[in-house]
C-alpha cells in the first residue's frame, strides 16, 4: 500500500527535479573548451618558479645567496654561484629547478632578499618523462648576462665612487668638526672654569 502511495509522490518529486534541470539547460555553459579556449589564470596563481626581470638591471637579480635552496621543503632548487670581477656579490652559474618536486608553497619567494623569484604563467606544462620537468632558469637570461654584468659593474663603480666621495666628505666634515670642537672645547673649558669658580 505504502509503495502505491509513493508513486504519485515520486512522480511529483521527479517532475520538480526535471524542472530544475530544464532551467539549467537554458543557462550559459560553465565549461571552457580546453584546449581550444584557455581559462584565464589568476594573477596570484602559483606555477613553476621563474626569475623575474628587474628593469634597472635588464636581467634577473639573483645573488646566489642560496636562501631559497635552503628553505625549500622539497629540495627542488639547486644553485651554484660565483663572484664575477668587479661586482660585490655573487651571480648564479647554475639555477636548476625540478618542478616535479615543487609543492608551490611559495616559501622561496618569501625568503628571497632581492625579490627576484616569481611564478611563471604556464599552467599546463606536461611532459613524457621526469626530465621534462627539470628547468634551467638561467637559460632565458644567458644572452643578457653579459649586458647585465656590464650594468652591474657600472653601478658598482658608481657606488664605489659615491662611497669614496662620501668618505672624503665625511673625512672633511670630521676634520672640520674636530677643529670646531677644539675651538669650542677651549671655550667650554673657559665657561666650565667660570662656573666652577663661581
Amino acid at each position, binding site marked *: 500500500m505504502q509503495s502505491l502511495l509513493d508513486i504519485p509522490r515520486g512522480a511529483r518529486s521527479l517532475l*520538480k*527535479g526535471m524542472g530544475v534541470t530544464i532551467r539549467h539547460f537554458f543557462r550559459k555553459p560553465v565549461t571552457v573548451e580546453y584546449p581550444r579556449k584557455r581559462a584565464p589564470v589568476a594573477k596570484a596563481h602559483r606555477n613553476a618558479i621563474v626569475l623575474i626581470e628587474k628593469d634597472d638591471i635588464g636581467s634577473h637579480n639573483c645573488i646566489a645567496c642560496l636562501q631559497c635552496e635552503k628553505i625549500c621543503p622539497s629540495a627542488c632548487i639547486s644553485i651554484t654561484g660565483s663572484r664575477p670581477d668587479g661586482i660585490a656579490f655573487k651571480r648564479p652559474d647554475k639555477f636548476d629547478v625540478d618542478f616535479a618536486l615543487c609543492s608551490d608553497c611559495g616559501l622561496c619567494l618569501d625568503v628571497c632578499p632581492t625579490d627576484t623569484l616569481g611564478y611563471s604563467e604556464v599552467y599546463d606544462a606536461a611532459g613524457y618523462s621526469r626530465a621534462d620537468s627539470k628547468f634551467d632558469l638561467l637559460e632565458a637570461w644567458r644572452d643578457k648576462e653579459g649586458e647585465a654584468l656590464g650594468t652591474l659593474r657600472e653601478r658598482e663603480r658608481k657606488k664605489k665612487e659615491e662611497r669614496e666621495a662620501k668618505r672624503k666628505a665625511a673625512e672633511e666634515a670630521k676634520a672640520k668638526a674636530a677643529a670646531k670642537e677644539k675651538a669650542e672645547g677651549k671655550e667650554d673649558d673657559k665657561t666650565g672654569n667660570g662656573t666652577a669658580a663661581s
Partner: protein
Amino acid sequence: MPELIHVGRDEDRDTYYLNMGPQHPSTHGVLRLRLLLKGEEILEAEPIVGYSHRAHEKMAENRNYIQFLPNTSRIDYLSGMIYNIGYCQAVERILGLEVPERAEYIRIICCELNRISSHLLWYGTLLMDLGGFTPFLYCWDDRENILDILDEVTGSRLTYCYGRFGGVTMDVNDEFLQNTLDFCKRFRERLPEYETLVTENIIFQNRCKDVGVFDQELAQDFALTGPILRAMGHKRDVRRDEPYGIYDKFDFDIPTLNGADTFDRFLIRVEEMHQSLSIVEQAVSRIPDGPVMAPKVPRKIKPPKGEYYFAVESARGHFGMFIVSDGTEIPYRIHLRTPSFANLSSLRSVLRGTMIADTVAILGSIDIVLPEIDR
C-alpha cells in the same frame, strides 16, 4: 569491478568475501573494504587503510616548522585551508604570536569558503554514489566558483599554502571581497534548487532514511566528531567549544539532529553550508583594514620545550595537532589527530547487518578523505 573471492566452504555456499576497492570509485580515494557477505547482507566489514600513506608525521621530524607548512594542506586535500591555517594557529599559540585583525578575518573567510567547497564535493559524490549524476555537476560548478575565488588570493586551487606564522602571504583586495559576496548571493539561490532536486527527491529519501543508524555508544567508543556526531544530537563543535582565531566574534548556529541516519547526516552538512555562508558574509562586511602579517615574526621558529595540543574544526570534525618540541628548530614529533580516521573506525559496527547496496550510502555519508586517514 570488485574482485570476487569465493571462500569455498561447501556447507555455506552463500557466505563469501567481497573486496570493495582499493580502486573503487565510491571509496573516495584508496580504501579497501573487505566485506563478508551472506547473500546481500553484510556479516562483517573490515576497512583496510594505508594505501596512500605518505608519512607526513615522519616528514615533520625531518624539517623545520616552516617547512612543514606545505604538508599540512596535503593531509586533507579537500579542506586543506583549514588544516593549513590550523597548523599556523597552533604554532602561533605556542609562540604567543599576535595575528593582525585583518589576517584573522581573511583566514575565517578562506576557511569557511573551503568548508563549503569540501561539503559541496561530498554532496556531489554522495549523490553520484547513489546514482544521481546531475547534482554532481551542479556542485562541481559551485565548487569551481569557490576554487576560482581562492585561487585569486592563495595561488592554489586545492593544496593551499596560504597561511604563514603571524598572518597570511597575500592581502585580499576589494575584488576578492566582492567576488565572495557574489558567490554567497548566488549560492543562496542555488541551495533551494538543490533542495528541490535532491532533498525532496523520494528515491533519495528512501535510500537514506533509517539507513546506517549510529548507536549512541559509538560516539564514545570511537570518539566520533564532526557532522556525524552532530547528527546524533550532540552539539559539539571546536569552533564553539574552544574558540580559536576569532570565531567567538561570529554569530552562527551549530545544527544538530537526532536521527543519526544517513539522511540526517546529509541535512546537517547542508545546514552547515548555510551557517558557513553566514559566517563568510559577516566576515566580509566587518573586515577591517590593516596589515596581514605580524610585524615581528622570528626568523627561526623555536618553540619552547614542551608538549602542545591544538585543535580546529575541519569539515569532517575535530582535527588536532599534538606538537612535541625539544626547543630546537625541528619538531621532535607532530602527531595528527584526524577526524576521518576515528569516524571510519566506526564503519565496522555500523555496517554489520546492513545490505550491501547501502554500503556506499553509509560510507559516503561519513565523508572520509583517505589521504587524511593514512596521512
